[in-house]
């Protein structure tokens, strides 16, 4: 069979773990309206922190927990560049991303940290009774459900409303006594924390952390968000969060199918970029919500 269950299972596993990253991208790009390119660097940073800790003999769960801390710091760096030094969002993100390349290499000590034969979070889940075949799926579902729930709750708190309003109307939030800079720092920190968490989970899933694993991540995240919004809509808060997760899974399934058609893995960046361009230019895809910060 051309599309078999194993292909779908593998793509779904990847889609769910990458969905954590897509939720982070949604938080910065859509909620905050901040086109944040830190993502390419913070994804690798999360993977690097996690891999180095595991290679150093620490628990894979510690690696998973400390990765988002590093990601939050990366997001804050971009936030400070933008809010304090008045650098445009795009350039602030590129600066942090570039600096992170060196930081990531320092963290890992070399371009690639293999984790073969070392314990991963999935191993410990499999040992706790979950069938080995579904350990990754169980982690992905559990993690994504928890995060969607947390974000949905956050978006409805007083703080969450202020965060959402910051991405909508900066003049208004100031007139209501909200410090827009604090909100941007909060959003960028949380967003990149999620991205780094995703990077850590991916590194443990594929069994290595690599310098180049974050390249094009922001576009993949954006593609997931757009696919989700087109397929599932964005009528309510909960719906759009679920749509982002769904978009990530669908995106990975599409990639798996395209690979099966005989394309090289290295062709996928071109494919993904074309997908995003298509989504931004074909009017019916854009629907009600325009990607204003991405178009001129």
């Amino acid at each position, binding site marked *: 069979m051309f599309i078999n269950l194993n292909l779908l299972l593998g793509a779904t596993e990847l889609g769910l773990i990458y969905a954590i990253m897509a939720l982070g991208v949604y938080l910065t790009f859509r909620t905050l309206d901040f086109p944040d390119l830190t993502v390419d660097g913070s994804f690798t940073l999360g993977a690097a922190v996690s891999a180095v800790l595991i290679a150093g003999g620490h628990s894979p769960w510690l690696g998973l927990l400390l990765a988002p801390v590093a990601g939050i710091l990366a997001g804050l760096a971009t936030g400070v560049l933008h809010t304090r030094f008045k650098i445009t969002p795009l350039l602030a993100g590129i600066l942090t991303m570039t600096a992170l390349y060196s930081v990531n290499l320092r963290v890992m000590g070399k371009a690639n940290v293999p984790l073969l034969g070392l314990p991963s979070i999935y191993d410990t889940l499999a040992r706790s009774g979950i069938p080995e075949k579904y350990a990754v799926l169980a982690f992905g579902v559990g993690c994504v459900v928890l995060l969607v729930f947390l974000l949905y709750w*956050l978006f*409805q*708190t*007083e*703080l*969450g*409303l*202020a965060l*959402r*309003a910051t991405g*909508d*109307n900066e*003049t*208004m*939030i*100031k*007139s*209501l*006594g*909200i*410090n*827009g800079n604090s909100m941007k720092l909060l959003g960028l920190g949380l967003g990149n924390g999620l991205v780094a968490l995703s990077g850590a989970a991916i590194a443990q899933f594929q069994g290595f952390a690599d310098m180049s694993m974050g390249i094009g991540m922001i576009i993949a995240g954006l593609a997931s968000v757009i696919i989700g919004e087109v397929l599932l809509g964005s009528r309510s808060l909960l719906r759009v969060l679920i749509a982002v997760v769904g978009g990530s899974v669908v995106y990975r399934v599409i990639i798996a199918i395209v690979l099966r058609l005989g394309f090289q893995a290295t062709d996928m960046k071109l494919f993904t970029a074309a997908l995003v361009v298509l989504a931004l230019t074909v009017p019916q895809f854009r629907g009600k*919500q325009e990607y204003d910060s991405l178009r001129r």
Partner: protein
Amino acid sequence: MAELVIKEVTKAFNKGTINEKTALDDLSLTLEKGDFVTVIGSNGAGKSSLLNAIAGLWPVDKGRIWLAGQDLTGLPDYQRAALIGRVFQDPMLGTAASMTIEENLALAAKRGMRRGLKKALTYQRRKQMKEELAKLGLGLENRLITPVGLLSGGQRQALTLLMAIYQEPQLLLLDEHTAALDPKTGEVVLKLTKNIVESLKLTTIMVTHNIKDALKIGNRTIMMHEGRIVLDISGPQREQMTTEDILRLFAETSGSQFSNDRMLLVQ
């Protein structure tokens, strides 16, 4: 001490260039509690700059500003917002279009307060919102979960007005808030403004393009020209003033014609 004290405030833009423009020139103004002051003046007279200086959009070059006994001079705009409610000329500026009416009001309900991880919308708060929205008489109380972007300009401006006073401010700043609306809607919003300000006895500064409104509403009218206050009238003197008088006075004090592309000269 008076409620609002503006002392010798100067603000120039593009300083040191050929485009240098003095928006506020050694301006002083004092408002008593409950004063409802209307501000008129030609284009570039400094009317909006006066409001922006009070709201703290940018630091002033010289002078000090006190409100309710508090020195505002060094505070950023978002901190001054605890004391000040604002409505802008552009209906798009006062509300978050992608968020619902109840979410916008919930944001306004915490103006100047700490925002924590408590649920923003509770049964109690929704009930209060409905009561307040009903007072606007626009039927918005039945549309709590409508995104604000779907409302008309007039509805958005009325909502912004409600948001500005939802937490009672020490000072209300209205910057030609009916200018972008069609005349009929503008009239409705102006009437709402009058009712709200008078019933709450809010200290208010309203910039307007309509001299007739400026003389009719509030208890005091000031006219600005080139960053200074050239006319300040209240009481019987103001009651007897007509649009023609204002235009004549303007020509005398400024030596030029009153020009404002939005000014309505009709009686």
